[in-house]
């Protein structure tokens, strides 16, 4: 490339690079590219909010328009991260507000967001457009009111599956009458009723509204009112899908759906009354994404509805679909990319539905594009896993949750090592894997040998010894996130692979056998890792070095240890270690 290649043209070339990975590669090419790239980077993704400080980000990228931040580790979804652990977004908002007056987008996942943060967002940015809060907590509807009232050009407000303190439904009325810019609104996680009149008026005056996900409190009878005012909708989340069986309600609903010619995605369906499902038949053939994970409908209504959607690409459904339903799905939905089957009654030891490994095998056979699976079931066999692996070598995400921990192959009573081994061996593009059932160190050997593109691995109640962990850490070249619970992994594999941890985003280990001593050593040896120990029972009184930690969260960082930890979280560095040894000395151990 000649010296004379103009910078602004190079910037223009970079603008066509959509992936962060490419932008990052570009910035490492040479000095001039590094400079050009950093000045024109507009979107930043920060996978761990504690890996870097806002000061560093701001210094490097002076003109950012969109920021995405993630806070708590994934296992927070399973209540393994105690309350108060961290993930506070407020300090970030303060910095961003100061540095980027033209910031338009903030997307947060698993972070603690306060009303203060929301208010600051609403008042700091001149052209604020997008707020996405996925699995966040800490705010109330008052915070939402600030956003509604102050963000004149708001395009997207998505509350994901956040925990919102619902003070009142009036916040929605804070959208000014001249707000017509909404494109996407997702309030499905809210409990209380929003003012329907306000909602109706809002929907009516936003001609570009493409996504509308209502909360449960919006009654089915009123849905047509909204649909008629927004026939351009592409994604709809209904409220409670139940009403008394009345023909006029049905016909209104059917007519309203008939008018929605662009509809591609459906969700919601709380308390579904099957009799009302046929009202949507007119849109079924265009539907590509269907989320029935709250729909307690059973077969034959359920399978009949799903089979209507011949162009389905993504299906989330409860296990009421059963094996028969999945077989029908395999026959009618040849475009299926992603299937998630959730348990309707996970705490019951006995199966309440007839959903077994057969359903998944059927879908893997019948749907050639299937690449993403999350499947809860009560029994599995090596044979089934081998079949799935052979059918679908294009699998990218495979998450299997056999409800009973350590459940063996139900036919042979052997561990499921062979089955998962077949998955990693055949599915060469596999990026994400969650395992369950009875598993020995052998499965980790397979994983270390074959899963070269694996980026995220979740393990629970598996393995026999440190050997297992060692295979994973030493073999999985692309590993970014590793989360482990209740496995007999101790210090050896962890310490032997300490440098590996710097190449990953994070490691989570809870209820394993990692000792305080090992954590301390790891923290001392690896200054670019934060080795955080979560011990709700406090530091051990006697012989702390060999005591196992409750939970360990290790992540790479250039921001040093964090300063916002609660009392039961420690960063293991020299300080803690000297405190630990002082404790030992005093007790005379």
């Amino acid at each position: 490339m000649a010296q004379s290649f103009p910078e602004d043209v190079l910037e223009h070339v970079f603008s066509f690079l959509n992936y962060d990975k490419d932008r990052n590669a570009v910035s490492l090419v040479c000095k001039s590219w590094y400079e050009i790239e950093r000045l024109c980077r507009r979107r930043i993704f920060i996978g761990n909010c504690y890996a870097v400080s806002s000061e560093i980000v701001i210094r490097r990228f002076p003109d950012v328009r969109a920021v995405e931040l993630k806070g708590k580790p994934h296992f927070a979804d399973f209540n393994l991260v105690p309350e108060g652990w961290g993930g506070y977004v407020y300090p970030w908002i303060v910095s961003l507000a100061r540095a980027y007056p033209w910031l338009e987008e903030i997307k947060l996942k698993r972070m603690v967001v306060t009303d203060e943060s929301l208010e600051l967002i609403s008042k700091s940015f001149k052209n604020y457009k997008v707020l996405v809060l996925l699995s966040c907590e800490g705010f109330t509807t008052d915070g939402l009111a600030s956003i509604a009232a102050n963000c004149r050009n708001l395009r997207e407000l998505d509350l994901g599956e956040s925990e919102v303190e619902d003070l009142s439904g009036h916040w929605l009325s804070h959208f000014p009458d001249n707000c017509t810019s909404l494109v996407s609104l997702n309030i499905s996680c809210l409990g209380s009723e929003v003012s329907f009149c306000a909602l109706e008026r809002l929907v009516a005056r936003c001609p570009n509204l493409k996504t509308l996900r209502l909360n449960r409190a919006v009654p089915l009878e009123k849905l047509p009112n909204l649909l008629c005012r927004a026939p351009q909708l592409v994604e709809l989340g209904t409220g409670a899908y139940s009403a008394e069986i009345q023909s006029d309600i049905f016909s209104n609903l059917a007519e309203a759906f008939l008018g929605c010619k662009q509809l591609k995605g459906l969700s919601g369906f709380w308390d579904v009354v099957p009799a009302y499902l046929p009202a949507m038949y007119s849109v079924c053939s265009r539907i590509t994404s269907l989320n029935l994970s709250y729909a307690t409908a059973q077969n034959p209504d359920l399978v009949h509805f799903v089979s209507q959607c011949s162009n389905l690409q993504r299906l989330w459904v409860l296990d009421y679909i059963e094996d028969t339903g999945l077989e029908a799905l395999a026959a009618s939905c040849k475009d299926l990319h992603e299937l998630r089957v959730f348990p309707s009654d996970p705490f019951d030891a006995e199966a309440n539905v007839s959903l077994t490994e057969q359903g998944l095998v059927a879908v893997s056979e019948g749907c050639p594009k299937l690449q993403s699976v999350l499947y809860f079931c009560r029994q599995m066999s090596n044979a089934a896993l081998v079949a799935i692996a052979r059918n679908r070598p294009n699998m990218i995400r495979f998450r299997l949750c056999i409800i009973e921990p350590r459940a063996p192959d139900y036919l042979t009573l052997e561990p499921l090592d062979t089955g998962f081994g077949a998955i990693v061996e055949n599915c060469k593009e596999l990026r994400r894997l969650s395992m369950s059932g009875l598993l020995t160190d052998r499965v980790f050997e397979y994983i270390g040998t074959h899963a070269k593109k694996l980026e995220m691995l979740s393990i629970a109640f598996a393995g026999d010894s440190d050997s297992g962990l060692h295979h994973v850490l030493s073999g999985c070249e692309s590993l970014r996130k590793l989360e482990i619970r209740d496995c007999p992994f101790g210090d050896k594999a962890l310490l032997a692979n300490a440098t590996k941890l710097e190449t990953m985003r994070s490691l989570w280990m809870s209820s394993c056998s990692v000792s305080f001593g090992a954590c301390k050593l790891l923290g001392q040896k690896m200054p670019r890792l934060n080795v955080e120990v979560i011990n709700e029972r406090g530091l051990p009184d006697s012989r702390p070095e060999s005591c196992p930690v409750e939970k360990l969260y290790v992540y790479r960082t250039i921001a040093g240890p964090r300063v916002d930890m609660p009392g039961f979280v420690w960063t293991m560095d020299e300080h803690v270690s000297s405190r630990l040894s002082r404790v030992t000395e005093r007790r005379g151990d």
Partner: protein
Amino acid sequence: MSEGPMAVVKPQMKSFIWLQTTDGSIQQVEEDVAMFCPMICQEVLQTGMGSSKNYAISLPQRVNAAMLGLILDYCRFHQVPGRSNKERKIFDEKFVRLDTKKLCELTSAADGLQLRPLVDLTSRALARMIEGKTPEEIRETFHLPDDLTEEEKLEPLRNITDDPRIRLLNRLYARKRKELKEKQNLKNIEVEEEQHVDERSVDDLLSFINGGIEDSKGARASKNKRKNRRRKEQPRNSSLNNENGDHKESNNFSSGCIHSDSNNVASPSKTSMSKDMASVIFSPKLGFNEGDIDDELDPAMKEQLDREVEDFARRLNSVWPERMQELLSFGQERRLVPVTINGNGSFKRCTEDKILLSRFGQEMMVMSSSCLVSLSV
């Protein structure tokens, strides 16, 4: 002339625009083709140039004869109104099948002529050539220099002296270092001898500093955090907070450690190097303007800072020797990290910094300062 049967039918007169490229060559181009380029169009309309050979429009330097030829081919095709979108797309796809060098030249030339659609087309093609490649591969493709040095990658961490608090702490750190060193010198004759002359250049020292800076940055950060910790813990666990006791303990501990440090270290030069490193890093000579710092702070903040700094200094005494040990051993460990970076198995000769840094994945890199520039490989 009469219009009888023998009248000559004149061929339709086409207008031509005369263009001159930097290599001196002049050519005439059909008007409707040339005018497709906004730059040429502008020149013709505003200055009236291009009507004859003597008044040929001088094109920008980036547009050589070969590139002009290509661009005119593009214009010639697209200025015809009747073509379908599909036709145009097929033409475009074929058109950009050029080698990298030509594609770059073409992009640059198209930009010079302000021909936006062609700039977009070629830019997208270049972006496709970049997608999915590693920095090394991109460098090879575009013949770019590998001029991001280790120092530069690490250097920006040194710039974290903007915060007056940190500069103040650095200053104090430097003073404490000096005091500690003086104490050592009195206690340990061997060490004193090694101190005498360091004949390496400043550059060598600076490059070693950069190798060590990140660790000390980590140290600084963790010390700050420790400071907060201590305050939080005071009400909780007062038995551990006997300040005087700590102070005495740590003093003894520290001198003991230094003593063992110098004995255990592999080579004498390393000892002196690290000690010099310490003094050079934190020496006021490195450009901290002491006068400036105090002027910037308001009195209340200064008071608070003084308190924090004192606290910090106390901690320094207890922690520094351990930190030294770590720096030394960490440096050695880094050398042991295996060298292969690329999957192709080729053995790259890199410094250990690059190796370590190269193992970082993309996300870390996004966030990093230029130090972490290299972390994204």
